[in-house]
């Protein structure tokens, strides 16, 4: 086993802050949607709004960080080994087969992760953000020249975004447990250090 430092300090802060905010916004958001009572409607809206601005602020930093550090390259999609990774999760994982992808500092996400995170960044997040900001300023739509936009349409798209995020969250949390031990990946995201198999496993052991 070899330890490599793959999640830098800002990245870990960004991840966990985002995780908390997303979970919190799902909880308050579905309350606003009228599904249950948790904070009370008024507070749910207030908290949801504060969390939204916090998340937007966090993302501004994160985007800046991704581009200045070159970390954005980790999300460039690739088909290389994608089928192998999918096949691993469908069959190999049950037979203790080795993971076809090896984490390095240059490639910290496997091709499936790349696709999943890219989908979050390019589809789910923009959908939620754009509709969410529109909802925050619905009274200004006529002044913005988009008065013909229907509140209901925007709200439904926002809701669809929320469901996609919820589904991502479920899958993501589960995949966290699929490391070489169930807690290995979460540990990596907390400490920044990941344990990876050596290039020649037999020699290292």
């Amino acid at each position, binding site marked *: 086993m070899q330890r490599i430092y793959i999640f830098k300090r800002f990245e870990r802060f960004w991840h966990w802050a985002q995780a908390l905010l997303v979970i919190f916004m799902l909880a308050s958001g579905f309350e*606003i*949607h*009228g599904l249950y009572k948790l904070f*009370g*409607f*008024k507070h749910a*809206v207030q908290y949801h*709004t504060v969390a939204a601005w916090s998340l937007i602020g966090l993302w501004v930093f994160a985007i800046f960080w991704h581009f200045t550090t070159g970390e954005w390259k980790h999300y460039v999609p690739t088909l290389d080994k994608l089928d192998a990774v999918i096949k691993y*999760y469908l069959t190999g*994982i*049950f*037979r*203790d087969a080795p993971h076809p992808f090896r984490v390095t500092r240059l490639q910290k996400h496997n091709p499936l992760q790349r696709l999943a995170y890219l989908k979050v960044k390019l589809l789910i997040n923009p959908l939620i953000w754009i509709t969410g900001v529109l909802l925050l*300023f*619905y*009274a*200004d739509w*006529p002044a913005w020249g988009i008065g013909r936009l*229907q*509140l*209901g349409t925007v*709200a*439904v798209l926002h*809701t*669809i975004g*929320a*469901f996609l995020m*919820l*589904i991502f969250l*479920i*899958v993501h949390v*589960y995949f966290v*447990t*699929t490391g070489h031990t169930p807690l290995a990946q979460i540990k990596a995201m907390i400490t920044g250090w990941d344990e990876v198999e050596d290039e020649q496993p037999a020699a290292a052991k």
Partner: protein
Amino acid sequence: MPPRRIWLSIVFAVGFALSAWADEPAPAAGANPADLKKILKSTADHGKFKELEGPFASGPDVTKRCLECHTEAAKQVHRTKHWTWEFLNPESKQRLGKKNVINNFCISVPSNYGFCVTCHVGYGWKDANFDFTSETNVDCLVCHDTTGSYKKIPGRAGHPAYEEMEVPPGSGKKIKPVDLVKVAQNIGKTSRDTCGACHFFGGGGDGIKHGDMDSSLAAPDKALDVHMDATGNDFSCGTCHQTSAHDVPGSRYQPTAADRDGAHIRGKADKTNPATCQSCHGATPHKEEARLDSHARKIACQTCHIPSIARGGVPTKTSWDWSTAGQKGPDGKPLIKKDAKGHVIYDAKKGDFTLAENLVPEYMWFNGKVNYTLLGDKVSKSDGITRINWFEGSADDANSLIWPVKVFRGSQPYDPVNQTLVTPHTAGDDDTSYWKNFGWEKAIATGMASVGAPFSGKVDFVKTEMVWPVTHMVAPKDKSVRCIECHQQDGRLQHVGGIYIPGRDHVRLIDLIGFALAGLTLLGVLGHGALRYLSHRK
């Protein structure tokens, strides 16, 4: 608080009070506080006018004296709805006003003038021949009395009692003559009491008609009305209904539903209605929550700030079924039934009523345009409910806001052959009035003849609805409607269409698919995890 601090506080408080007293300007020579109050109130003490020393034989005699100085006052009054009881809606061209409309309370004025005009700002309107150009027949006192002793007596065509009389006749209730000299000498500004003498009692009694106006507003506390709070802001009606030339603004025949013009500023020529909330508070009054200002672009202030009406202990009428009128009790006398609190719920003269206190209004889009079903307009039973009036407005209309309204439901006589509403002759000591003779055909024949309208002689009853905007009884802000009361299914705005309300509205299919997919995903990963667990255990 420790005792030492209490003593200190008292010493400071007393010292402060003394210093404030010392700063008070010396009162004008010879003026005691009561006189000073009078001096500061007005430049004229009507008690010192020789012209008002009397004696006065009648109301018009007083008016003559008023007009000697206030030479144009009657001409001003002549121009107002308070005098003409007529309003020509410039948009719909409908001829409205008390004289012309039919409602589903006491129904209509014609042929009942002697009684209805108890609330007319004039004297002598006993039939259709009233002289609307008479200046001396303007009643100055009914609005400007400050003594509370001036009362117009029903059935006297707008006159008060000039001698002791029994009202109603045969009731044994004696009314003392009004002291016109005292009333005239104490003349002053209008007040909640003078306006309320009529407007609190619309529909034949306290609180019956409006629901947001009743006698509890004569001296309300803060919880009942944050502006008129008698020990606080103490607004009179005129504070908002800021009147010039005797023409009181703020009529519900052509209300201002959405005031986008913002607050009125001194010195600026504002032609818009001064009685709207926005004319003082502006269009963006919410200091702490900008989101509420966005709400105000689609929702009338009243919708959130008047959580319920009839809050002052006086119930308002919510329905009136004329079709059951005329029943006699076991004693052969016209039947009267009361509820546990002593409020009349059946009166042989009028039929069945329902009443409510703390009534939550209904809500609808409203752009200020009101239409009426007038005498002569086609009415048929097959139409279901006849709308006495209806509000225009919709979610797509930029001038519409969601308004709270009192919807008054009833059943009232109509002519099934000519298919029109009717104007029955209800009040009067004669051979055809309904309240004396209990015969619809005769009463309606007299009423319709008085306005020259055709009547087939047949009577049936139609269900009716009338809409009243709710705008009084503004609660303190901590008592305003909570977010959740509308942002939920089956909330206050459940019937208001055309708008998406978070918490109320869902696209069922999206929710279903969303949760189904999330659920399947969860099952999928749990299954995957279980398989992993089982395969590794082997």
